[in-house]
């Protein structure tokens, strides 16, 4: 274990200058949201010295805004806040349930979606859900804000597009219109307090006759990053999302998956079950959309 410093900037500007100053001084800066990953890693995996820069006091990163066309979730917003927001749960049920799957009630008081994304684990539960609902990362950068679709954010195991002088302010999500809904399912051997063996997020839009007009499918924990599954989406569009279409979507997810065998599951297991989850999440999203 080494020496640690802590900074709590109040604005994006201040946070950027803190990051720049730490970089200039040759210090390692690490953004801190709820700390539910960072603190555990610091105690067990990587004990090296660093300066924590706390996003929870940055005003812009603590906004939660539900607009007519767009939802904005600041990177510092705790999952518990989202889980208790009925409006959000009704318009983005899949995304919110992905956040609600992470950790215990106590952990959710600190954990954030932004932190889950920036931790960039292949098994991060909110990542496929964010991708499925078309979320865009709003990144504070020395040259001004830049936006990156969530499917392009994570670049590898624990790595992402953020430069040391940048940080995630929050996530912009297009507000689902009409009969649109989403769902996220993950598989774990227990009921909670576990890490995804695989996961699948599905967002879709139905027309008045129940035919799917748009869909997006993303899967997690079956490759080094979450994957978009265009063939699964294509299998759903133009159908009533019936068993046949869902089965085709499942096959597409299984086919695209590039899992590994480890202590949590085998290649064969993950490949098969990610298809099952795609099918089940698709059915849930369909039923939710039909109920609108």
């Amino acid at each position: 274990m080494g020496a640690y410093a802590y900074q709590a900037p109040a604005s994006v500007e201040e946070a950027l200058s803190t990051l720049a100053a730490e970089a200039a001084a040759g210090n390692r800066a690490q953004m801190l949201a709820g700390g539910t990953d960072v603190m555990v890693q610091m105690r067990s995996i990587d004990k090296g010295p660093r300066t924590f820069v706390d996003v929870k006091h940055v005003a812009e990163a603590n906004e939660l805004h539900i607009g007519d066309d767009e939802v904005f979730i600041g990177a510092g917003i705790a999952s518990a806040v989202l889980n208790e927001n009925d409006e959000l749960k009704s318009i983005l049920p899949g995304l919110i349930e992905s956040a609600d799957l992470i950790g215990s009630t106590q952990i959710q008081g600190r954990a954030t979606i932004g932190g889950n994304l920036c931790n960039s684990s292949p098994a991060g539960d909110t990542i496929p859900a964010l991708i499925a609902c078309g979320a865009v990362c709003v990144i504070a950068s020395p040259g001004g804000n830049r936006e990156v679709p969530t499917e392009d954010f994570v670049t590898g195991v624990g790595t992402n597009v953020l430069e040391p002088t940048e940080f995630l302010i929050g996530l912009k999500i297009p507000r689902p219109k009409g009969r649109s809904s989403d769902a996220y399912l993950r598989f774990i051997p227990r009921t909670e307090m576990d890490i995804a063996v695989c996961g699948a997020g599905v967002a879709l839009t139905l027309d008045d006759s129940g035919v799917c007009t748009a869909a997006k499918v993303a899967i997690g924990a079956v490759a080094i990053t979450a994957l978009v599954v265009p063939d699964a989406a294509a299998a759903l569009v133009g159908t009533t999302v019936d068993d046949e279409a869902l089965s085709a979507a499942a096959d597409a997810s299984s086919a695209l998956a590039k899992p590994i065998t480890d202590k949590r599951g085998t290649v064969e297991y993950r490949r098969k079950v990610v298809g099952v989850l795609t099918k089940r999440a698709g059915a849930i999203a369909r039923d939710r959309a039909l109920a609108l």
Partner: protein
Amino acid sequence: MAEALDLKAIGTRPVRPDGIDKVTGRAAFGADLHLPNMLHGMVLRSPHAHARIKRVDLTRARAAEGVLAAVSGADFPGGAGAGDLAKNVIARDKVLYHGHAVAAVAAKTLLQAEAALDLIEVDYEVLDPVMSLDEAMADGATLVNESQHTNGDTSKPASNIAATQRFERGDLEAGFAEADIVVETEHRVPMAHQGYIEPHACTATANEDGKATVWCCTQGHFDVRSLTAQVLGEKVGNIKVIPSEIGGGFGGKTTIYLEPLAVRMSQMTGRPVKMTMSREDVFRATGPTSGTWCRAKIGAKKDGTFTAASAWLAYEAGAFPGAPIGPGCMSVLAPYEVPNLVIEGNDVLVNKPKVCAYRAPGAPQSMHAMESAIDELARQLDMDPIDLRLKNSAAEGTVAPYGPRFPAIGLRECLEAAKVHPNYTAPVPEGAGRGVAVGFWFNIGMQSSAEVRIAEDGAVTVMEGSPDIGGSRASMALMAAETLGVPYEQVKAHVGDTESTGFCNVTGGSRTTFATGMAVVQACEDIIAQCKQRAALTWDLDEEQVDWVDGEAVPKPGVNADVKPLSLADIARGAGRTGGPLLGRASLNAQGAGASFSCNFTDTIVDTETGKVDVLSFTAVQDAGRAIHPSYVEGQMQGGAVQGIGWALNEEYIYDDNGVMENAGFLDYRVPVASDMPMIDTEIIEVPNPFHPYGVRGVGETPIVAPLAAVSNAVRDQLGFRIPDLPLSPPRVLEAIDEQGGGD
């Protein structure tokens, strides 16, 4: 006898005396002690599963900032010839598992100690690790211990099989020939950890007069004293051990790991040394229970009568001999009348941590095999699995496979209660499966002591030496209150340190409420005898003319004395005039521990697309003899069931090719979480143990025995085929379903 007693305190459910401190955070556990000038000790652990130690150099570590002591095996007596316990505490010539302690340092801060570990130089000659029973038992296997011969027979080549055991009765082949149906199954059950929440921790301080004091969390501080003395080459009397509250043990805290290291480094520095394990250390370096490979074979007539049975068991001992093959062999057929049998056990070394006791050590694995085979037999006979077991059940007078004749036992009563239980008479839920199994554990007696002290207002202090891992202080207080005839609230039970109370063997073997309870009852009887004597003196009567009724001394019926009854408080208040303070005591080696049988059944449902098994309901019926505090008996039954279900479904040690455990943490060593479990329904059966004053049998271990097979049998019931090995983790179950071409 017990049945005739009109019980007032026993069987009630008062609040446990340690409860408030535990839920408010006041209770002091192993790592909670802080002493002035205390040093922090840390252990350097082997990065190899099997290697010869060529050199350990502590020079640089000793010179590091803040470091005041560093030790290796050379700092302890015995060298390469030291006993297994000592070599497990700190390696000498070889490291035998990944995580085996090689050296330790003590420094002013934890950070300094951690940094110093990196400065210890160790040269290893890496050897092939022996990681499975098949590998270990194969001809020409790499030897974990080159000088070990099976059963000490040096006329045979050295072997990884440390010991064998065999029970035989009748004529096995003739018995199988007599059978109409013979079933044979083979099973593997993985190494599993007790999973206690509190990691091992101790603090030791050694003084200039050669005395040392150790604070630690343990199931038996008298054992810590003797074992620590043994490893250090000290006299027992030089070591005092003070037990803390304990955050779970389940058998895993019946030995020592850190204590001799802390004492030695305190002796070297003159300062207290505190050592704690991380969760990872606990998994890698403390004793789990054996992974096993078992074959079971059983034959029966068409009417279900067993004619013969055999069992072949191979148990992983870990790095040193001592797998629980004895109890594994003794348990496997204990519930049944079997005229012809052969039971064989093998205690096998592998490069994994030395196993330690875990709740009914050895029984869950062997009985998983036999109870699975019996389940198959019931299916082939088209008999209800409870009826088949009832037909062959052991009862009073049955000669157990390991020799003795059972006195009164409650197996039939458990089976009969299960058969009519509403959870059993209810239909199996749509799509689910139901499994039945029985469990057994001998329970043990061993040595205990107790003192009972009466304060001047009649307050009763029970002092005993059995660390309380399951509510035993409440049970001791209830038995004392019952015996003395005073309210429970008037009694406080305490666990004394090694110098404050008489010797007690470890809290284990489900012995505490039975044996230490018996000592408490006898110590209370000693108090009653003294009270009668004091009353006689007060009243100028003979002792024989005084009775003790409902907590008061009274003249016996027919004795002509015009006196007011004397309560415990009255006598205590006047004790100075009648001979001094009231102090009762008893010490014993308890005989007549009563076996506890159980019948468990469960409904489970497999998601055939993911292989996940959900437990819908679980019912545990068990003979407690007498439930002193029924809530804590039920708690034992529920806790054991959950541990057994966890072992059946997900718990296992996963090793990589180099013998490194891959899941040394609670994220990937999956004990069940609360939401995984249904309410575990319990029914306590009371067939009193004739050898305990209140009929106690001991209940802590039997509950973990039956769940493994009950869950396996339920999954078998739904799927239509058996998955013989555990755990029934989703990947294993889905693979089996796919091999069978779909489960529905």
